[in-house]
């Protein structure tokens, strides 16, 4: 019986060889493919099993990772969640890194970025769990809080930047959402919350400040047109413009009225300064026609229109239309027709004017620090463009101060501080519905903060309030919080 037993041994050998080959195939040849399979929970958990860097505002974490006992080991927590939701974005096991810095700086926060290579090598040698770097933001918590509270439940957005550096001091979009609901480890609840957020007609996940559907800028665009006029050399602050009660759009019989149908000037010849102060529509429609589309477009681009900006979140470029007939050109003079902006872009216009015409690149991350608090990266302020000359900036500043002192933006006044501003009431659709705008900076003689606020029209035919009435108080709250005492 020994021969068959030996043969049986060979059969056993063959069986085990088959197992060794199969194991080799799975664990060596096919392993990478298996790891990359969609829905491989192990790979997913692995990315969640290391400590993700915190997001800090003035030393306080607005997003941080907390140790848990379950599979995922770390849970992401957002303190002051709704106030900072559009800055932080969310970090969800099911939906990944979404919106905000969580998405835009995912690699740095997760610790997989190339800039953290050195630290990873050290971790590997010392056997430490790799962890991500933390971000310190430029946000001023007081300005952020003031913006969030002043906006309240109204849909809209508010942005503040430091005109001298481009540092973003506040970034608020309303309605907000609670990122904790998405970062929870209760995956069914996360699923429900996500469905609810994506299906909400108010679109709380959209960051209206930088990445929403672009808004018509309304009268805030008059700053760009006025800048173009001053830069052309043909106009000064006291140049008289053609500003009748009604302006017939060239080549059409359509008449453009002033707000409330009022005259800008008894003679219909308001100065440029006066036109800005009272936001005279007919004068600016006429002025745009005089300057020509190219001059206005170029000036808009000097202010940042059409530029790809990452703060580090992607900012939707604002746009000034390409092909215009004379009537359309006239309409762009008052920020209507196809001019489309983000609130950040509007803030950048004010910031450039405040900063003697030099437009600084906006940014949100001050420093990146690794686990040992070593600074890995520090953002240095950069000039994006020379928007207008210093004298143009000074002239525009003077006009904007008059807007707040005795024009359409008096509600933005702050006792003891000179505020420069510009209101806007941007019509959209054909029913006369309008969004309320305000942009400005303070103090006018030593600018520390520039803001832009938009409050969306609640309904399609809501025309009751102007930027001066609705948006200016929000801006005022932010400016007040941002001006050093």
């Amino acid at each position, binding site marked *: *019986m*020994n*021969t*068959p*037993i*030996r*043969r*049986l*041994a060979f*059969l*056993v*050998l063959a*069986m*085990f060889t*088959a*197992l*060794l080959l*199969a*194991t*080799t*195939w*799975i*664990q*060596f040849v*096919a*392993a*990478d*493919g*298996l*790891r990359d*399979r969609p829905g*491989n*929970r*192990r*790979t997913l*958990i692995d990315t969640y099993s290391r400590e993700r860097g915190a997001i800090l505002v003035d030393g306080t974490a607005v997003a941080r990772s907390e140790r848990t006992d379950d*599979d995922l080991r770390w849970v992401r927590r957002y303190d002051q969640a709704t106030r900072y939701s559009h800055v932080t974005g969310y970090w969800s096991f099911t939906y990944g890194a979404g919106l905000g810095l969580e998405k835009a700086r995912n690699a740095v926060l997760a610790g997989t970025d190339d800039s953290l290579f050195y630290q990873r090598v050290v971790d590997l040698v010392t056997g430490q769990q790799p962890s991500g770097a933390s971000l310190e933001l430029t946000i001023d918590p007081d300005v952020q809080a003031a913006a969030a509270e002043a906006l309240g439940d109204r849909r809209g957005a508010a942005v503040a930047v430091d005109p001298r550096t481009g540092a973003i001091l506040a970034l608020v979009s309303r309605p907000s959402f609670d990122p904790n609901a998405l970062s929870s480890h209760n995956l069914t609840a996360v699923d429900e919350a996500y469905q609810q957020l994506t299906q909400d007609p108010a679109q709380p996940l959209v960051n209206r400040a930088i990445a929403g559907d672009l808004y018509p800028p309304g009268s805030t665009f008059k700053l760009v047109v006025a800048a173009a006029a001053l830069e052309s050399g043909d106009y000064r602050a006291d140049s008289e413009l053609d500003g009748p009660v009604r302006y017939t759009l060239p080549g059409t019989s359509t008449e453009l009225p002033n707000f409330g149908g009022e005259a800008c000037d008894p003679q219909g010849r308001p100065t440029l300064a006066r036109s800005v102060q009272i936001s005279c529509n007919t004068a600016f429609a006429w002025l745009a026609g005089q300057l020509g589309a190219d001059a206005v477009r170029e000036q808009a681009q000097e202010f940042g229109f059409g530029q790809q900006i990452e703060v580090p979140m992607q900012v939707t470029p604002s746009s000034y239309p390409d092909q215009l007939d004379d009537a359309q050109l006239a309409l762009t003079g008052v920020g209507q027709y196809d001019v489309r902006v983000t609130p950040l872009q509007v803030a950048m216009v004010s910031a450039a004017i405040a900063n003697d015409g030099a437009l600084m690149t906006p940014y949100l991350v001050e420093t990146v620090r690794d686990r040992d608090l070593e600074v890995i990266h520090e953002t240095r302020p950069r000039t994006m463009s020379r928007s207008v000359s210093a004298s143009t900036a000074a002239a525009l500043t003077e006009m904007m101060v008059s807007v707040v002192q005795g024009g359409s933006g008096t509600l933005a006044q702050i006792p003891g501080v000179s505020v420069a501003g510009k209101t806007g009431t941007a019509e959209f659709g054909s029913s006369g519905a309008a969004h309320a705008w305000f942009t400005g900076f303070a103090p006018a003689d030593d600018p520390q903060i520039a803001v832009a606020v938009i409050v969306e029209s609640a309904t399609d035919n809501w025309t009751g309030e102007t930027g001066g009435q609705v948006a200016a108080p929000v801006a005022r709250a932010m400016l007040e919080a941002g001006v050093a005492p």
Partner: protein
Amino acid sequence: MSPAGPTPSTVTSLRVRSGRTVELLLTLFALVVVGLAYVNVELAVREEVPPDLWWHLGTLTALALGLHVVLRWRARYADPLLLPIATLLNGLGLVMIHRIDLGSSSSSVATRQLLWTGVAVAAAAATLVVVRDHRVLRRWTFLAMAVGFLLLLLPMLPVVGHEEFGARLWIRIGGLSFQPGELAKIALTVFFAGYLVSTRDALSLVGRRLLGMQFPRARDLGPILVAWGLSVLILVLQRDLGSSLLFFGLFVAMLYVATERTSWIVIGLTLFMAGAVMAWRIFAHVQARVTLWLDPFAAGQSDQVAKGLMGLGHGGIFGTGLGQGYPYLTYFANSDYIFASFGEELGMVGVFAMLMLYALLVERGLRTAIGAREGFGKLLAAGLSFTVALQVFVIVGGITRVLPLTGLTTPFLSAGGSSLLANWVIVALLLRISDHARRPVAERAPDPSVNLPGVPGVTSR
């Protein structure tokens, strides 16, 4: 066959080593490995040295060394590798079960498994003490058959029988559930060995030659048809593909060893194929298994195989390290899929080592069969070794997609008392046979305490 030496003294100087010292050292080595693995898991998961390390490791040490002492006492020449290998596998199984306990929010399967290890090792020791000579088992050939069949059919009984995960394999008495099929495996091996030793001449010599093969007479086909019928019955009534495959494979292998006729294998494989195709055509659960085998990621199917593969893939060549993977994400991580759990945390390297342990265990068993001095011992040892090999092949092959997945326990590793008990008894029987096979001639004097009446050719020695 002693070499012609100048003086007889050269013959007497050849002392046969009992191997007990080697066994002791290897067993201690196995225990050290298990202890380190346990500490490793606790450090990785809980970041502390297990407070109950000495208690747990002490229990396992006491069990292994206890069995070692029994061997010194009752089976001095037994193969010295079997106990260390079984100890190492059992110990690693305990560590992995404990590790999965930690991963799946405080259950205590490991404690129960340690308890069962005690029972199983005690049963092995009892087997060694009670069965002083394996040949006594031959007397119980037909009793073993009756017991085997009874055990197999026990789960079909109305009250005690119990169905889990669609297979009716368990009996449950009180709170204790047990898989009698595991023990039936041993009883049936004893039966096959006894039966085939008596009938091997009729099966191998009588018959017709056809196509260069010796085919048996129709009446000699009876037993293989019965075995086939039995495995089909298991398949149909208990919905257990694995056991069915195991019993039939075991029977065909032993038939082949007994008769030395390839024709039996051809007949056996033909019958098996026919049965398999039939089962595939009739049963939905068999079809599902085949579909998953061909495409583990098939949409709308169970993702059991896929999860195991992802675990293995996650481990890669060197594994995540004990306690640092996610083996508990796989279904049945501590029972049917424990091999995948090891693959994830110990990697391809670790899994190779474990397969080598099994191969070595089986090899020592087959070597025992070759060394055994009579047919019954040869068949029994070959049969018992081959069940271990076949069981490892079927379950690990199912996990690694060598063949469709069938639920079976992985010997010594899987959580489950019946499996542990059965495998330790198998090891005890192999130890017993190997003791007989390796005992030097000088000491082979009949033990007066062993009386083997009624066993032909035994008492006459």
